[in-house]
């Protein structure tokens, strides 16, 4: 399993908002434009329900909102970079969140889901990658960084 299998040019962005709710909606909107998720309301409900259980701000300025829902057949990843930082994300280390990676998988894709989560979290622990991503100014730049990062380094 490699990251570029899940990365799409059209699903990376520079986040406009600086509130948790706003940025989550931005990423959901991004996913909805692709048309792979039919029931966007369900996705919204699921994402916010999960955040209510416990914030997905996992520290180091990273958040990984993730959820499994019905009607999805391939895992979908969307990434947004916030230059300002999201202060109200309630990360475990109380740092503002700058990188938000949203992961949506099918209800029954337990294994893929866990692997993908693990892959992304492991990647994001890399300081230099994080630095590059945070400094990037456009979706194209983000996309390029991610593609390069993925060159040949398979993590399964």
């Amino acid at each position, binding site marked *: 399993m490699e990251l570029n299998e899940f990365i799409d040019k059209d699903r990376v962005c520079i986040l406009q908002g600086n509130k948790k709710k706003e940025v989550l909606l931005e990423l959901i909107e991004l996913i909805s434009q692709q048309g792979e998720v039919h029931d966007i309301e369900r996705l919204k409900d699921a994402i916010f329900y*999960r955040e209510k*259980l*416990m914030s*997905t701000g*996992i520290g180091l300025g990273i958040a*990984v909102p*993730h959820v*499994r829902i019905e009607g999805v057949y391939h895992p979908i990843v969307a990434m947004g970079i916030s230059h300002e930082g999201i202060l109200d994300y309630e990360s*475990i280390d109380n740092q503002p969140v700058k990188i938000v990676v949203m992961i949506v998988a099918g*209800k*029954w894709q*337990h*294994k893929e*889901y*866990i*692997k993908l*989560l*693990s892959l992304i*979290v*492991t990647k994001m622990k890399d300081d230099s990658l994080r630095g590059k991503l945070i400094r990037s100014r456009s979706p194209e730049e983000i996309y390029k960084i991610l593609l390069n990062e993925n060159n040949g380094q398979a993590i399964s």
Partner: protein
Amino acid sequence: MKIMDRQFLNIFSFISLYNLNILLILGLTIFLGTVGARIFKKFRIPQVVAYIIIGILLGTMGIGIIKEPIIKAFEPFNLFALGLIGFMIGGELKKEMFQKYGKQLFYILISEGLSAFLLVTLIVVLVGNFFFGSSKLVWAIGLLLGSIAAATAPAATTDVLWEYKTRGPLTTTVLGIVGMDDGLSLVLFAIASSIAVSLLGKTSAGILAKSFRTLYEIGGSIGLGILGGFALSSIVKKINEEYGILAFSIGIIVLILGIAKLIGVDILLAAMSIGFVVTNYIPRKGKEVFELIDKFSPPIYVLFFTFFGAKLNLGRLTLPLILLSVVYLLGRTMGKGIGASFGARLSGAPKTVQKYLPFCLFSQAGVAIGLSILATHRFPGEIGNAIVLIITTTTFIVQIIGPISTKWAVAKAGEVGLNITEEDIIRQSKAKDIMDKDVPLINENMSLTEILKVFSESNYLYYPVVNKEKKLLGVLTVDNIKNTLMTSGLNWFLLAFDLMEPPVVVTSPDTPMREVKELLSRHNLEYLPVVGADKKVSGFLEARSINRKISTKIIQLQKQAESLG
């Protein structure tokens, strides 16, 4: 009312044997017998009593649908039923039982049989002297009745034990006694009739010839049965299909019964010997044989007992005979009671046996009636008729009271419901009876660390995940968690909510276990959450532990039965 009755009866006499075909009679008998049993069950009266009463209503003493000729025509069928009953009783006589209860059975058998014999003989003679004068005649009747009194009918008694699924020392003792005291009764009858013959001064075979005859009857039937048992065992060992086993078993039983009839030995003993060999020679396969016969026999038993009721005819009863019947009944009941309880005490049988065995030995039927008919052949005239009428009258009473009192006694002894099979449990239980009620609930927001703690503290493979309201959201499996742990360090931010599987199928607490088993196999499920109407989790079923739970229940009941002895 009287006129109504008469018209009612007329209608039925119009529908005579000629108008009713045999299948219709058989159908009516089985149908009404079964319906009667269902109704009687509401009043907690054993089904046998219902069959006999329905038989009386349909038979000679009732509306007369079942008439003499048809009963005569069905005599071989009755022997077949008796043979099946004998076979099933033989199946209960396991080696281990003799090792455990042998001495006890022997003491009780001798004691209850002899004391019934002596007491009946004695008081019949005392009372009879008053009516008949001639003391020789009275002594002959007394001795013959006494010897018949020693027999206890297995059919009605065991039917009660089987209906209420009893197990324990009382059940074992009753089975042993009713199975064997017919033999004792045969011996006593042979002795009594030869004494009677010499008392009455008739010329007949000598005592020696008589004892040979008895010895031949008992030995021959046992030998024949043992042969049949080995034949059946060696055939059945090689067959695996149920229908083959059933067909061969029935075939051999009927064959042996036929041979027994041909060579003039006792049918019941022969059938018991077949069962005895099968249960001890091939115990495991034998269990299957007995289960199959057990499933096969209910309609046969219904017919057997209803025909029995239909046969009863008390029309020619005179006052002295009624009095003698009462005397016989008293003597037999007291004799058996005192003898049984004395024998039980002497052999150190459990308290429940000492106390309740006397109430299980009232029943008398086939052997008693058979011997009384034999008496009419050997002593035609006054003696024979008196004996037949007395035995018929008392059989009628005792067959109604016997099963009820047996049921009462085994219930008092705490042995009801202890002899239950897995199938019975599945049939009787609902999801809520078998499910794990204390399976730990995993909260949706529990972290992996907390989940692992729960896992380590319990033994389940699957756990229901619930929200704040305890409503089911999904299921966590040990497999899910294993996958997660093998995939590098995520445990610090994953929740049960992220790790659970959605539930495929759920069931309600009131779903019968049969349906639950079907659901599990149809969907190939390893688990089944049990959810109430409010969607709250009320319990959890794991496929692997359902069978274990059922066998635990059975072992529990077995232990309970053993602890009684």
